[in-house]
């Protein structure tokens, strides 16, 4: 085995191979939790140190990224002395209704044009940063970090239904923020009432 021939501890080689490549992902998630650079950096360090110390508990073949996200969130909660001020969300049936703007509304509000812009990512990132918890971390995990509902449920320690509900609300709020951005950027059409101009 290469690790043995290089004289490294196999455990360390595995850790470096499995965990270190996800530092960007952990940093993004840490930032979404803490919303400031200094705290996010502390959180990343804490996450990796905890992960290294408890690497023996990692199940080989399981999802290292999910495991790191879980450690990161737990470290965040501990750092806040479990001052959870998350607004728990109802899981009512209405949540399953599509939260999308109707396409015709999206067109009128400039959302469609906005989504076509190649430089939308920074604006969308700002909108994401402004999204309140617990929606922000849920949207980050599922929509940015590609975690399944099950994985996000495990990381966040909430039922899958709550993940679904938070996604619904988070996405709706993001669309609303983008709609404002589209208006400010001049993408929304002038005739938002839908009435035709008749003053020829």
């Amino acid at each position, binding site marked *: 085995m290469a690790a043995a021939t290089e004289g490294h501890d196999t455990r360390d080689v595995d850790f470096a191979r499995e965990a270190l490549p996800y530092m960007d992902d952990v940093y993004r998630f840490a930032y979404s939790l803490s919303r400031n650079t200094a705290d996010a950096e502390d959180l990343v360090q804490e996450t990796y140190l905890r992960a290294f110390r408890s690497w023996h508990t990692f199940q080989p073949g399981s999802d290292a990224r999910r495991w790191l996200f879980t450690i990161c969130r737990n470290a965040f909660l501990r750092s806040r002395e479990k001052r959870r001020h998350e607004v728990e969300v109802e899981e009512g049936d209405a949540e399953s209704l599509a939260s999308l703007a109707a396409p015709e509304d999206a067109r009128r509000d400039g959302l469609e044009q906005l989504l076509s812009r190649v430089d939308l990512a920074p604006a*969308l990132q700002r909108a994401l940063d402004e999204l309140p918890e617990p929606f922000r971390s849920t949207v980050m995990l599922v929509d940015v970090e590609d975690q399944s509902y099950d994985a996000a449920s495990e990381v966040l320690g909430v039922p899958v239904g709550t993940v679904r509900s938070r996604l619904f609300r988070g996405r709706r709020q993001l669309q609303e923020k983008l709609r404002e951005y589209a208006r400010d950027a001049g993408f929304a059409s002038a005739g938002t009432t839908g009435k035709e101009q008749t003053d020829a």
Partner: protein
Amino acid sequence: MPENTPKVDCRSAMQQLWDYVDGELTPERMTAVQRHLGECAHCVPHAEFAERFLAALHETRDVRCCPQDLRSRVVAKLKEAGLTVD
């Protein structure tokens, strides 16, 4: 398309739309919604909009990356803690 795939109407398709674009429905439901979208000009723009919205969200991955100096500091801390490789 399997004959026993459940039929969905517009309301049902819209209710399941986010789960559909997230790939979180059962295979039968995925097929049923996909079939509805293939036949319904009213619902298809909703699905396209949802997919574009999620694609745009996913692109924010490239906006924020771990700063190189933080990466170095983390590795240094790990070495202090006993890590023997980079």
